[in-house]
């Protein structure tokens, strides 16, 4: 019996798509050019908008979200973006890094988008319409054992909505949400998907170097990243399994699994000190140049494109 007769049609199509995606990812290193949007907002504007909301009713679209907790979570995220926490054991880190940039650039846009999503069950931001599926609406507010994400319903709603809306090749075998899928491939973010989300949501001009299976060929990695950080915000796509070891298995698949926002970087002799944001806090990591090269698979640089930012850059 021939192989194509054994594998049913939809799976066959998914396998072909997966193969194509892997091929494209493998050969492409510098790919994305992000187009910026209109001028962004301030934290004060976003807080003024949220402070005007005094009597928020429960939303029929999100039956398990308590309105007061939702509003409190929104205000906290807007005032302290650093406290964003994508959840213990989840695959939400890419959405967390994206939201961290979103909140620094356009907190009012973030607040209005999430309020619209909460009240209407769907929302449009720039050219993207988010219309989450029913299982997502049921689950938001009920995620458990994820650390502080357990009590942050607005973040739960947002991360689940993003994972439900954006799909990459890692998601094609699990496209519909079932409880527990936040820890699985359903929520995974590959590098191209991260850059696509950034292009849709952020008012930034962005460039990306790297891929899911190949390290970027950029000469001296430290010099390159330092240079990019001097002119913009940099997100690194790293292999976290060797940074935060969870077992002693010596042979590990060299693939990136985690998105972090680079905050500071310095080098003394051969030791590189990197300060990055992820999971509600900043972390300082010291490592050799060789180790640094081993963990970095993607470098995304985001620069503001509005006139003020350009002037400052000059």
């Amino acid at each position, binding site marked *: 019996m021939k192989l194509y007769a054994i594998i049913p049609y939809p799976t066959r199509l998914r396998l072909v798509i997966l193969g194509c995606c892997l091929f494209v990812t493998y050969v492409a290193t510098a790919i994305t050019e992000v187009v910026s949007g209109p001028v962004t907002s301030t934290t004060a504007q976003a807080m003024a908008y949220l402070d005007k909301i005094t009597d928020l009713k429960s939303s029929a679209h999100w039956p398990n979200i308590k309105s007061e*907790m939702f509003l409190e979570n929104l205000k906290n995220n807007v005032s302290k973006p650093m406290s964003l926490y994508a959840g*213990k*054991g989840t695959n939400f880190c890419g959405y967390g890094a994206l939201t961290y940039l979103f909140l620094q650039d356009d907190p009012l846009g973030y607040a209005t988008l999430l309020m619209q999503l909460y009240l209407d069950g769907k929302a449009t931001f720039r050219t993207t319409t988010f219309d989450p599926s029913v299982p997502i609406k049921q689950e938001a507010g009920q995620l*458990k*054992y994820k*650390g*502080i994400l*357990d*009590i942050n319903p607005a973040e739960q709603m947002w991360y689940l909505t993003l994972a439900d809306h954006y799909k990459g090749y890692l998601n094609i075998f699990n496209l519909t949400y079932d409880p527990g899928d936040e*820890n699985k491939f359903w929520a995974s973010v590959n590098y191209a998907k991260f850059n696509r989300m950034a292009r849709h949501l952020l008012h930034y001009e962005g460039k990306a170097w790297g891929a899911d299976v190949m390290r970027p060929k950029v000469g001296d990695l430290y010099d390159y990243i330092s240079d990019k950080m001097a002119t913009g915000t940099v997100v690194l796509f790293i292999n976290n399994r060797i940074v*935060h*070891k*969870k*077992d*002693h*298995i*010596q042979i590990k698949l060299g693939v990136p699994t985690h998105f972090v926002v680079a905050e500071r970087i310095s080098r003394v002799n051969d030791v590189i000190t990197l*300060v990055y944001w992820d999971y509600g*806090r*900043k*972390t*300082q*990591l*010291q490592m050799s140049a060789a180790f640094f090269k081993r963990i970095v698979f993607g470098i995304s640089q985001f620069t503001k494109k509005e006139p003020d930012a350009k002037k400052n850059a000059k």
Partner: protein
Amino acid sequence: MLRKMRNKLLPVCLLLAVLYSCSPRNISTKYYFENEKVLDRIEESYKALYPLGPFNIGFTDRAFKTVSLEIITDTLSYIYEFRINEPRLTDTLLAYNLNARKINLLINQMHDIRCTWINYADYYVDEKKHNLILMSIKPVALKAPFSYAKYYVLTYFPQPQYFDNEGRLLDRRKLRELMQINGEVFHRINSKVCYTVSGHFR
């Protein structure tokens, strides 16, 4: 005929008995009580030192020679790796005003019992934050075949917990739902201490 079969079965049974005695499940039931004093001493030391300056400790290599130290401050978490008993380790602890002597003692205690990791973890019940101490051990016996990647993970709760008839840790909120920590279901040792066997030490 019967004797021949017995001769063949005997080595197989012996092998199975040896493997069972080293199996994670069997070790889990006895391990804590056999090492209770040392394990509790490590937990007590960590609990006493943590409020002076939050930190996590682990061993990131199989030979238990590389110490991973995570120092948590209000603004930053600092991750360092040292060789065990390396002078830089003590210098770093002193630089953060931590009790270097006691932390070095804790590290040596962890090393001696093959404790791979210790940290404070938080969890939420009825929207309130609670803490527990999570400790992972890689007992020698767990190096047996088929159990290479297993760790014996203990949780120390500050207050008594709820369990079902099979001794599994329950979520306090509904009393019927199993509680998960790092995606694992835990089992009762006593009212405040639970264990599981996991492929991950943290």
